[in-house]
């Protein structure tokens, strides 16, 4: 495969045949949302790729300035729509930092457990859609997809039992949680995670020993760790390139300080390494969640008194930044407070935005089929890219 400079001026390129400009997206079955990638193809080999963002821009950051601190949570939920709890957690962390409030231990444990089972659900969905990218909606990919969705449903059932909503829970508030653990929930979680753990082994045997899967992923879309760090890539994509960096272990928040966390790291940096890291992360998340579930402390779930009115929380002027490790990487929330009940400015640092920035470097020199696989392996969520 010829090495092609990603910053090439397309007018200077001399194609072998005719240069085809292909707009991959915004309506396309495998851009995982409304991402548009403009591709210059020589035959089927990509010469240059430019991602265009903003098709899903809903002005969430601006909306947050118009809403009170309490009303921000359900809006922010929709950013990373595959792992809603992490959005809530990041923004509420920064509010709590500004207020100087620490959520009680029970709330910390509950948040951590929720984040970990959410990570399992998010990675399960990723595995299914990654299969779709390679196997098609009318083929083996769809079979993998249906199977991973079956397990993801059971995780959503857990959230339904806890918060009443299967998705977009609005369960975290400034200072703690809204919904306490219902009776029998821990038994349900243990049961569900036990089933999922055995099913993950099943998928691994299905996918791992599949010659076509290996042929499509091994050595494809290798991410250079130096480049990845320069672009601010984080999460599984970074760890698959050999950079051992995980906020859960390196800057513990929530209840992560109380558990041992093994961070899976691979050095190959290709699509297969990213697959392996995510599958290992699912196992690790199940382990962490089960471990935490054994030691959930008794006590209140909210440090402040339960919020009844939207304007009940006021924050004195200041700047707060909190970041957490979501299934996709480091999600940061930067908030400026001006003493009123509304944030003055709210900036989200989504991990997927930095992931999409990798695409112009990974696509050139690759076949069109591989670009789809590479994009799928990076697992961007366009909801948080465009916000």
């Amino acid at each position: 495969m010829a090495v092609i400079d990603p910053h090439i001026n397309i007018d200077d390129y001399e194609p072998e045949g005719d240069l085809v400009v292909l707009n991959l997206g915004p309506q396309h079955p495998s851009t995982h949302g409304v991402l548009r990638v403009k591709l210059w193809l020589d035959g089927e080999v990509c010469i240059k790729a430019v991602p265009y963002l903003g098709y899903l821009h809903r002005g969430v950051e601006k909306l947050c300035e118009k809403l009170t601190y309490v009303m921000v949570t359900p809006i922010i939920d929709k950013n990373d729509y595959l792992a809603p709890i992490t959005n809530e957690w990041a923004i509420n962390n920064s509010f709590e930092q500004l207020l100087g409030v620490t959520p009680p231990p029970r709330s910390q444990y509950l948040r951590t457990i929720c984040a970990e089972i959410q990570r399992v659900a998010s990675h399960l969905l990723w595995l299914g859609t990654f299969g779709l990218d390679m196997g098609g909606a009318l083929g083996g990919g769809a079979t993998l997809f249906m199977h991973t969705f079956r397990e993801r449903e059971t995780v959503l059932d857990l959230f339904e039992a806890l918060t009443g909503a299967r998705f977009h829970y609005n369960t975290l508030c400034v200072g703690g949680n809204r919904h306490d653990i219902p009776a029998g929930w821990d038994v349900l979680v243990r049961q569900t995670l036990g089933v999922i753990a055995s099913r993950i082994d099943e998928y691994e045997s299905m996918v791992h020993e599949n010659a076509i899967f290996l042929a499509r992923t091994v050595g494809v879309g290798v991410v250079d760790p130096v480049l990845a760090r320069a672009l601010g890539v984080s999460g599984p994509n970074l760890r698959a390139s050999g950079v051992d960096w995980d906020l859960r272990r390196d800057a513990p928040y929530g209840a992560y300080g109380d558990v041992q966390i093994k961070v899976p790291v691979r050095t190959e940096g290709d699509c297969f390494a990213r697959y392996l890291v995510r599958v290992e992360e699912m196992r690790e998340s199940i382990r962490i969640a089960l471990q935490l579930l054994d030691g959930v402390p008794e006590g209140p779930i909210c440090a402040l008194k339960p919020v009844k009115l939207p304007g009940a929380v006021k924050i004195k002027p200041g700047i707060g930044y909190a970041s957490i490790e979501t299934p996709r990487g480091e999600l940061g929330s930067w908030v400026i407070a001006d003493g009123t009940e509304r944030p003055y400015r709210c900036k989200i640092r989504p991990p997927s935005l930095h992931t999409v920035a990798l695409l112009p470097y990974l696509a050139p020199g690759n076949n069109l089929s591989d670009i789809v696989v590479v994009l799928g392996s990076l697992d961007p969520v366009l909801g948080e890219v465009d916000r």
Partner: protein
Amino acid sequence: MNPWLAGALWGLVVVTGAMIVAAWSTWFERKFAGAMQNRPGPTEVGPVGLLQPIADLLKLLQKADIIPRTADPVLFNVAAPLGLILVLATLAVVPWAPGLVPADLDIGVLFALSISSLMVVPVFMAGWGSNNKYALLGGMRAIAQAVSFEVPLLLAALVPIILTGSFRISDIIAAQADGHWFALWPPGPGALAFVLFFLCSLAEANRIPFDIPEAESELVAGITTEYTGMKFGLLYLAEYMHTLVSSIMAAALFLGGWDGPGPDGPHWLLIKSLLLFAGIFWVRWSFLRFRGDQLMNLAWKKGIPLGLAVVMASALWVHFT
């Protein structure tokens, strides 16, 4: 009987039969895929969804027939029925029982294979005529794939011809009487040639894992991107029929055709080809897709040497026995 009248009658019977089998195969495939994916498949139309193919047909007929303004109207419109006509023409040389054959050509195998390799023409017509980049890429891929897999397919089909010494399909089936199926005997080349023939016909018919011309994850829907309504249905049906015809050919050339335990007859050919057809479903719903260049490697570096080897082995077998 008047040869024109006989031809018309045969055509009516064979085409209607093939259509019925293909239509209810879609029902079976959807049930089969449903069973593999923890879902029920069609249930609403008729008992256990049995009338679903009719509902699908009615739905396709009602859809608006859109011809893109920039498309080439002739190529775009001709491609859809042409594919189906070509693939149905192959059925003319398939013998169902001794003497029960629409046209017992002495070059039957050659006729069937040449017609089925013509199938790439409507596919490329659809890809080129749509004037859509995804369709064009799909058409390009289809040609590359068909040209590559043609060679090992023909080499594999040569094995029964060498073993029998005839291009006539009824001769080939007659030579396999009493269980001497070419897939089983001679032990080495027969089985290998059968596997090779079957895989290459999968590739010819653009089925998973070789369905890169319509790889919907990258090419949206490949050549069928711009097609709507019944024209889409015809293209889809042609591809489906191609798979069915490939199964029938494989059953006739390698699995003894009408020969079987108990009374011989058309039912055995039907049962064998439907079992092969179901095998294709199984493969389809459990495998991922190859990349284009990997597929070419498979054809040129593995398929053709293997094909040459089995042809050589069967020639030696005939020479020394």
